[in-house]
């Protein structure tokens, strides 16, 4: 029986990019779920027109919350495989089939799309990414190069063990922590480093909060 693949895209003010992202995702998945985090632009209408199943939240809740709602919804809609990607075109949906075949071939629970910290990544984000990834390695003894990626492909069986509480950007760190704590089988697959908008995404304050939270999660172990 064919597995159902659902791509989950959390979106906030992404009307400029969402159409292309949805159309490209639709080409490789059975369904595309866009969770509009109460955007001020017409992200919802553009995504719907592009063919996505769109849910608009009643209030702005953050990327972590939107992604969790999207994944819950994907499961309710019968997903066997869930892929999460960003709405701003940072991730190429065309990588999903390649990641999926590795997932099946290696009998893994999850695949991380891993970006290189090269010149395509703004210098401040490169430092932040290196810092948080190193901290994750040290605290949780997990070998991961890009702990801050939002590109994941995982099975429906793995999701209950991954389901996170973070509402904002801390979600990507919590995701890795859950993988480490649950002993889920994973690998990283290299993906292109694309930054469409260098000012959006995690800022210094979010990075600091993530670092503090990681120490807290380590102590809770």
């Amino acid at each position: 029986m064919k597995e159902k693949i659902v791509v989950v895209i959390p979106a906030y003010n992404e009307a400029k990019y969402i159409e292309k992202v949805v159309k490209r995702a639709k080409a490789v998945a059975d369904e595309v779920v866009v969770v509009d985090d109460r955007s001020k632009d017409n992200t919802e209408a553009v995504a719907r027109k592009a063919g996505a199943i769109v849910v608009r939240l009643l209030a702005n809740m953050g990327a972590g919350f939107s992604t969790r709602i999207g994944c819950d919804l994907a499961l309710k809609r019968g997903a066997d495989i869930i892929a999460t990607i960003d709405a701003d075109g940072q991730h190429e949906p065309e990588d999903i089939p390649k990641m999926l075949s590795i997932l099946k071939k290696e009998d893994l629970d999850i695949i991380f799309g891993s970006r290189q910290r090269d010149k395509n990544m703004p210098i401040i984000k490169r430092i932040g990414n290196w810092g948080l990834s190193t901290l994750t390695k040290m605290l949780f003894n997990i070998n991961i190069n890009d702990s801050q990626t939002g590109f994941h492909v995982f099975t429906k069986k793995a999701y209950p063990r991954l389901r996170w509480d973070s509402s904002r950007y801390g979600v990507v760190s919590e995701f890795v922590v859950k993988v480490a704590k649950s002993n889920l089988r994973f690998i990283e697959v290299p993906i292109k480093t694309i930054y469409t908008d260098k000012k959006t995404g995690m800022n210094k304050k979010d990075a600091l909060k993530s670092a503090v939270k990681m120490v807290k999660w380590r102590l809770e172990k």
Partner: protein
Amino acid sequence: MIRISHFIAIIYSIIMLILTYRLYRKNKLNFLGLGIWTSIWLALFAGILLFDRIETVANILLGMRVMDVFVFGAILIIFILLFLLNFNIVENKRKVQEIIEETALREGTKKK
């Protein structure tokens, strides 16, 4: 002898008592809230009016000046209120999240 500070405190207590009662009548405060806040304003009111008598009792029983008792009591009350307020905020945030989550999932499941 009534000093200006006593006068201000008494007017303040009376205004707060009236405000508390009006909020209760408008259902913006429950019965427990009415009780707690009324007690606080009445204690302040009585404390100001009976300042000299309380001074004597405070000296004998607690070895403190009455103003010190007031300040100490006020700090304790502020911390209790902050704690309860924080608890309420966390609880309300959780409820709001649940509502948003349920609504989103209900809507999303229906869509084709």
